[in-house]
């Protein structure tokens, strides 16, 4: 597959503008011209922002940092799809060759009760931190660790753990879910640590506390629609949610916690 020569696009953007958490918001329409198909989606927004600055309008606020698809900072809903049309891709890794000349692109922030809007396309995802804080860790103080090869971890177990641990905490799962459920995010951490020997000591406590916090943070319940899995840039699997359910019920019914 060889690179197709780049082209330039003229686009109509409809972007959610909202000055602050309490202010009313709405879609605003902008035109951008000469967008190279080699640009990333965020570079296209950069172009728009330069244009806005030049015309004296406040640029569109959007979260981003690594622009490599790993930090989980970026994320907007593009034409109704979290992180846009490509599967397994963050907004920053989406490229403009996915669009056509003359397209209209609707850009909205993540919407969920648990993710209040900060400004424009930026939302507050600190609820995720509080869920991790509730138990998404192994309690091992620095200096306490045994020699690394003392406990063997079979290759396939490590692979399962790694696949779950790959979550970048972007929140697309919540954004794309009709119930604004955080199950995929929570299940990724629970599965990661439950599958490793190092995570066993706190296995029950962890899942009980993380789920309790998830509920308290006003995320919705899972109705197994699979939208989260389809939107997840880190390809976290729905099977993790099944594991989360299993872990939770085991802990609730059988553990002493």
């Amino acid at each position, binding site marked *: 597959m060889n690179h197709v020569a780049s082209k330039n696009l003229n686009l109509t953007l*409809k972007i*959610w503008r909202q000055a602050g958490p309490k202010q009313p918001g709405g*879609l605003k329409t902008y035109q951008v011209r000469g967008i190279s198909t080699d640009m990333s989606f965020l570079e296209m927004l950069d172009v728009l922002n330069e244009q806005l600055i030049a015309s004296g309008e406040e640029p569109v606020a959007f979260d981003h940092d690594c622009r490599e698809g790993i930090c989980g900072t970026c994320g907007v*809903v593009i*034409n*109704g*799809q*979290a992180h846009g*049309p490509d*599967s397994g891709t963050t907004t920053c890794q989406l490229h403009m060759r996915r669009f056509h000349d003359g397209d209209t692109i*609707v850009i*909205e922030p993540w*919407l*969920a*009760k*648990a993710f209040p809007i900060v400004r424009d396309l930026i939302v507050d995802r600190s609820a995720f931190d509080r869920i991790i804080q509730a138990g998404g860790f192994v309690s091992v103080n620095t200096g306490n660790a045994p020699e690394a090869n003392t406990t063997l971890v079979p290759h396939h177990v490590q692979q399962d753990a790694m696949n779950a641990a790959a979550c970048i905490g972007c929140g697309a799962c919540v954004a*794309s*879910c*009709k*119930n*604004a*459920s955080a*199950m995929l995010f929570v299940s990724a951490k629970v599965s990661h640590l439950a599958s490793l020997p190092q995570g066993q000591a706190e296995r029950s406590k962890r899942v*009980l506390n993380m*789920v*309790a916090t*998830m*509920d308290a943070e*006003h*995320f*919705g*319940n*899972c*109705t*197994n*629609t*699979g*939208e989260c*899995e*389809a*939107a997840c840039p880190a390809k976290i699997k*729905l*099977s993790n*949610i*099944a*594991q*989360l*359910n*299993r*872990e*939770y*019920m085991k802990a*609730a*019914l059988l553990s002493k916690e």
Partner: protein
Amino acid sequence: MTDSTAQCKTGLLGCLGLSWFFRLLSSSIGQKFVMGLTGLLLCGFLVAHLAGNLLLFAGAEPFNHYAHALHSQWELLALAEFGLVVLFLAHVYLAVTTTIGNYRARRDFYVLKQSKVPGRIIGANSWMFASGSVVLGFVILHLIDLRLGLRSSLHYLPEENFEAPFRNTLAALSDPISRVVYFLGAIILGVHLSHGFASAFQSLGLNHPKYTPLIKIIGKIFGVIIAVGFASIVVFVPGMWR
């Protein structure tokens, strides 16, 4: 916490050492679990119910015999009915509360929303509450028609009459309103189950790379069987035994 007075502050359940149970039932995952469990048990009932009702194709004799045999075990039947009512009410209660909770969690809706699931335009699963509600309507009418016998327009035969089960069923199935509602109910129930069946396994945490694909297919087939099974009764039985 070893201080028992502190525990009692959490209420009666706490004193009984059952606060964990309360926590379980009030958690999202616990509710999902109950939803899945009740749903699957109701599926079990549906299988039995369908099997029995298919005897309508065999004619009055076999069906009446089956019905009377069933009713002769009235203690068991009462227990089963009670169980079914509990399952059903639990399922419906949770359906309502989780749907409201989920709606609140979403809070805002996108101006434009598209699915990212390959090939999905609108999935059955986004309509679980809607389909469930139709089923609920169907079930209520069905109970009014046949369990409670409240529709005088159907001219019920008295229960003592050996022919009653078959005749009364046929009467209900021939009523135009019931026909339409039953037919729709059966189809929508199938839709409900085409997602619900496999989904329940996921909710119960029963997921395995070797079996899950199969369960998904079985779920779809199950939905079709239930829909076609019940709908065929509505469509064909009245004509066969007029």
